[in-house]
């Protein structure tokens, strides 16, 4: 791609006036649109399509939710190692030792209000982990029902 084409591409990117930021705020909608219209030029620039970048814990939550959103409890013997492997296939995050969490419930409990009843700090962290996923569900989820079910969980945990 020569510089003339690049200049043209940049002009095109800037043609969409809804992506102009004038005040002190912008919206999720604008963010998503901006990322979407970039994908073509990225291909031409030789950016290989890459897995979305997402923190490890959030990646785990997406995988767990997609696999088990429709069951009340995790089946016995669901190992974090397996979730880790699946998460790494879908998302990009730094590989490191898994020391902080022992079980899948510690990452993404089935009944978070009870699970975090006596630990406000952990509950707050969990809530923050969910909020980003709920806001950007279309970027991270492949199973729509799982995304919806996570949204319900998020609503619940905001209230308890």
């Amino acid at each position, binding site marked *: 791609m020569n510089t003339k084409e*690049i200049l043209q591409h940049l002009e095109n990117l800037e043609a969409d006036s809804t992506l102009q930021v004038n005040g002190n705020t912008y919206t999720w909608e604008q963010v*998503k649109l901006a990322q979407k219209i970039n994908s073509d030029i990225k291909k031409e620039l030789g950016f290989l399509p890459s897995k979305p970048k997402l923190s490890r814990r959030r990646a785990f939550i997406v995988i767990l939710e997609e696999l088990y959103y429709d069951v009340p409890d995790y089946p016995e013997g669901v190992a974090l190692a397996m979730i880790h492997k699946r998460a790494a296939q879908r998302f990009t995050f730094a*590989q490191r030792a898994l020391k902080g969490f022992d079980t899948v419930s510690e990452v993404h409990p089935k009944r978070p209000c009870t699970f975090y009843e006596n630990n406000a700090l952990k509950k707050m962290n969990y809530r923050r982990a969910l909020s980003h996923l709920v*806001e*950007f569900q279309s970027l991270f989820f492949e199973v729509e029902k799982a995304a919806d079910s996570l949204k319900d969980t998020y609503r619940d945990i905001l209230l308890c």
Partner: protein
Amino acid sequence: MDEDSLKISLLDTSGNVENFGDTYKKTADIFAYLLHQENLEPSRRPVFLKIVRDEDLPMVNMTKEFALHLISNMNERERKQLELLQKDDKSEYGIENEALTDFVEMELVDAATSYRKWEYGKYALRYFIDGLHSSESKSVIDSKNMDHKILLEKFSTNLNNGEEKWEPFVHLFLIQALKYRLNPSSSNMAAYDLIGDLVQKNLVYLSIKMNPLKSAFKESLSKAMTRARRRGPKR
């Protein structure tokens, strides 16, 4: 209310993050490392970790600065939590500390690679332009006799014909840098988002090539300026 139309506040980068001193140094290091590490061969990552902590690389420094702005924009509760995590940390790089790394990854990296990616891109351009220290051309560029469209075209052609052969992403960075220079308040998210992507992916490359990049920018610009001045009587 439609959730997509929820508002996000612009990152306030006017704060003096130098006041933080070394309080959040490890956090900023972890941030820069996490942002770029997957673009390196696994065997190169430990070296990169050390470089991030010890070396003075322009785009890496910019990235750390951006992390400090993210921190300074956090609410009180989050910042307290981070402060405690840092205080408890006894590890060499911080990255070994699971709780600290999780926090940085979730609260800072996830933001900078999604909804604040375009702000990261814009910050990188500002950093580049500020680092040029070329005030001598200011009056010429900003004069009414300068046709910005022609200037950009000439600038792009000069980049193409310059001695150094750059990758397209470098050209894109430099052209967008000039666009930013011509009108810093133009905030089109798509273009900045793209810059955010390419800076994140090429953090080390852009750092190492910073001086040749600056020269290419200045040279292409000064040649373009002499040819982009409007002819004819002043209006």
